[in-house]
């Protein structure tokens, strides 16, 4: 392991890769700061640029963008109450009131220190958890992989939010359906191409990611314009106040950061959970730990309420790399895009990655830590200047984002048919956004679809067409048992809620 770490360190610390972390963090912060554009868009926009790079450099750039986008999302959440990323919604609960009270600088500093601490603690966990899980998963077979993918997709749906389970399952299935378009990789037969030569290779993941996130998010900004507040204008002019944090405040926040890092990391490791759930859970946990007096401050500018979600969302970002790097299964929309990027570099993430390409494996982990340092040392002092970029008029920025998205996909295939497919997918994505059908499960389903089909085919071939492969191996059976629990959890929750509501109604009637 030490050899690997040193190898990763030497790769990540090469001047080119250090530059990539810096560029990634900076670009990510800027894109994440723009309301409406999240880390998925930020990473998707970077993919065409990274095609010519070697895999380690490409991944390092994207990891930097990921961190930067989360940090940028926090900045816009604090300054203008417009979280660019779902994972920073909880940051706005207390960050924005602090900014309104004239403490924007302090809120940003606490957000940056908390993110740094959360990211650092989680990177250390990752250092130990990833190789351990990778060595266990070396014994995995097709049946286990199939079961794991079913678990991943089910978990994404289960964590989609109250009452959204079936909707998320539908979107996952839609993603799986889209993945069947094109030539069947094993049989070489065409499926759903309708005789079109342009569809023989199927839909590229980059096209889908760009159209569903970058394009549709940019169009949504036009479709549903948000009013710019006075605070936003102040923020863009760089009026942030002092960034100093007192020793007492650091002392008060240290245990919050510790707790939230652990929680965030483990939530991040769970497939489907990710930064958003981690940040809300950490916020809730801190509120329940707080004294009665402190509890009253939550939502009105509590420093604890700001530090907890900020720490947890960064820790969860690191955590979400564990299933991606060790099992090759992404746990979130963002890591799904990264998986797609890795595959397009010719790198197959999974347990073999750790053995066959330790430089990629370790340098990504090390670069996360470097990314955290860069965010703290360089981005924080630059925030007043980066915030001014928010003042760039939307009427110029939006066509530029649309152009970058379209040309990014075109430059990979040099086929204008892709641009038209992107337009169709973007229109569909807008409709899904308007009716509140989540898009991340679709992307995850699409990326896992091909792998899932291959593993199912192989497992069935090995078991002579019998479904017994589902329960013959203890690993497969255990993973499927967890899947069933995850699948039933929302249902049970639903039944409990209905009973509770009925009981309340009966009580009200009696009262």
């Amino acid at each position, binding site marked *: 392991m030490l050899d690997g770490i040193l190898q990763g360190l030497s790769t990540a610390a090469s001047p080119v890769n250090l530059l990539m972390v810096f560029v990634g963090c900076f670009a990510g912060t800027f894109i994440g700061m723009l309301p409406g554009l999240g880390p998925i868009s930020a990473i998707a926009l970077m993919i065409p640029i990274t095609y010519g790079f070697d895999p380690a450099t490409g991944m390092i750039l994207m990891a930097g963008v990921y961190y930067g986008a989360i940090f940028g999302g926090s900045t816009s959440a604090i300054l203008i109450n417009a979280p660019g990323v779902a994972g920073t919604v909880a940051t706005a609960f207390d960050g924005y009131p602090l900014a309104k009270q004239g403490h924007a600088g302090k809120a940003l500093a606490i957000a940056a220190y908390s993110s740094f601490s959360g990211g650092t603690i989680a990177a250390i966990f990752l250092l130990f958890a990833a190789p351990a899980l990778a060595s266990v998963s070396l014994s995995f077979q097709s049946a286990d992989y199939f079961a794991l993918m079913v678990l991943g997709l089910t978990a994404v749906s289960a964590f989609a939010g109250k009452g959204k389970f079936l909707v998320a399952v539908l979107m996952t299935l839609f993603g799986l359906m889209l993945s069947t378009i094109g030539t069947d990789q094993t049989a070489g037969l065409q499926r759903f191409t309708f005789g079109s030569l342009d569809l023989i290779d199927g839909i590229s993941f980059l096209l889908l990611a760009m159209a569903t996130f970058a394009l549709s998010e940019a169009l949504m900004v036009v479709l549903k314009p948000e009013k710019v507040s006075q605070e936003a204008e102040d923020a863009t002019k760089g009026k942030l106040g002092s960034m100093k944090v007192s020793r007492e405040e650091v002392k008060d926040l240290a245990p919050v950061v510790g707790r939230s890092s652990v929680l965030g990391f483990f939530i991040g490791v769970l497939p489907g959970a990710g930064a958003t759930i981690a940040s809300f859970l950490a916020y809730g946990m801190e509120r329940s730990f707080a004294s009665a007096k402190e509890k009253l401050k939550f939502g009105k500018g509590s420093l604890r309420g700001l530090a907890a979600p900020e720490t947890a969302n960064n820790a969860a970002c690191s955590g979400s790399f564990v299933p991606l790097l060790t099992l090759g299964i992404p746990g979130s929309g963002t890591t799904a895009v990264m998986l797609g990027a890795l595959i397009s570099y010719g790198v197959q993430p999974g347990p073999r990655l750790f053995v066959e390409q330790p430089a990629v494996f370790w340098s990504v982990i090390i670069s996360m830590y470097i990314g955290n340092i860069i965010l703290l040392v360089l981005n924080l002092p630059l925030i007043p200047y980066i915030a001014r970029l928010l003042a760039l008029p939307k009427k110029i920025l939006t066509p530029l984002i649309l152009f970058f998205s379209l040309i990014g996909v075109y430059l990979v295939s040099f086929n204008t048919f892709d641009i038209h497919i992107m337009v169709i997918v973007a229109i569909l994505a807008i409709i899904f956004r308007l*009716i509140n059908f989540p898009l991340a499960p679709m992307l995850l389903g699409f990326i896992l679809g091909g792998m899932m089909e291959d593993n199912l085919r192989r497992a069935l071939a090995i078991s002579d067409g019998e479904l017994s492969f589902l329960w013959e191996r203890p690993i497969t059976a255990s993973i499927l048992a967890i899947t069933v629990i995850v699948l039933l959890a929302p249902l049970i929750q639903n039944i409990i809620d209905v009973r509770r509501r009925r009981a309340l109604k009966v009580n009200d009637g009696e009262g």
Partner: protein
Amino acid sequence: MTLSKEKAGALCFLVLAIAYGMEARHIPLFPGDELEPFTARTMPIALSWLTGIVSFLLLVLPQREETDDIFSVFRGLNWGKTFVLIALMVFYGLTLSPLGFLLSTALFLIGGIYALGERRWSVILLSSVPATVGFWFILDKLLGIYLAPGEIFTMLGAN
């Protein structure tokens, strides 16, 4: 009668599942594939069944809470500008080969910025033309990605 957005979405997915399932049955097979446990049709047919079942469940199960009527979510939005941008993207796709990268991109950006309300031509031209030329320079000259000149120019050159 009103239809909630969730139910309307489920109805669309039910129709999609049926159409997808019907099309899945037309996927060609190799001779002898009927004896195989897994063919090119297996996954699509399974997906069509699953999607059908889930969308049907969503359609018939009672909703947890009242959601907006499907038509209300499309009202009060800035559709005009959005449609113009969509049309411009289609136009960009159609003109990229005949007009070439430089001209089509500049036209797309000029059209987009104008459509979003900017009327000062100095601002429009200063934000679109340098961006187009700068990006072309990075791609073509620095990164060595060949961007073919428009077919129209090739034709003019040939004549």
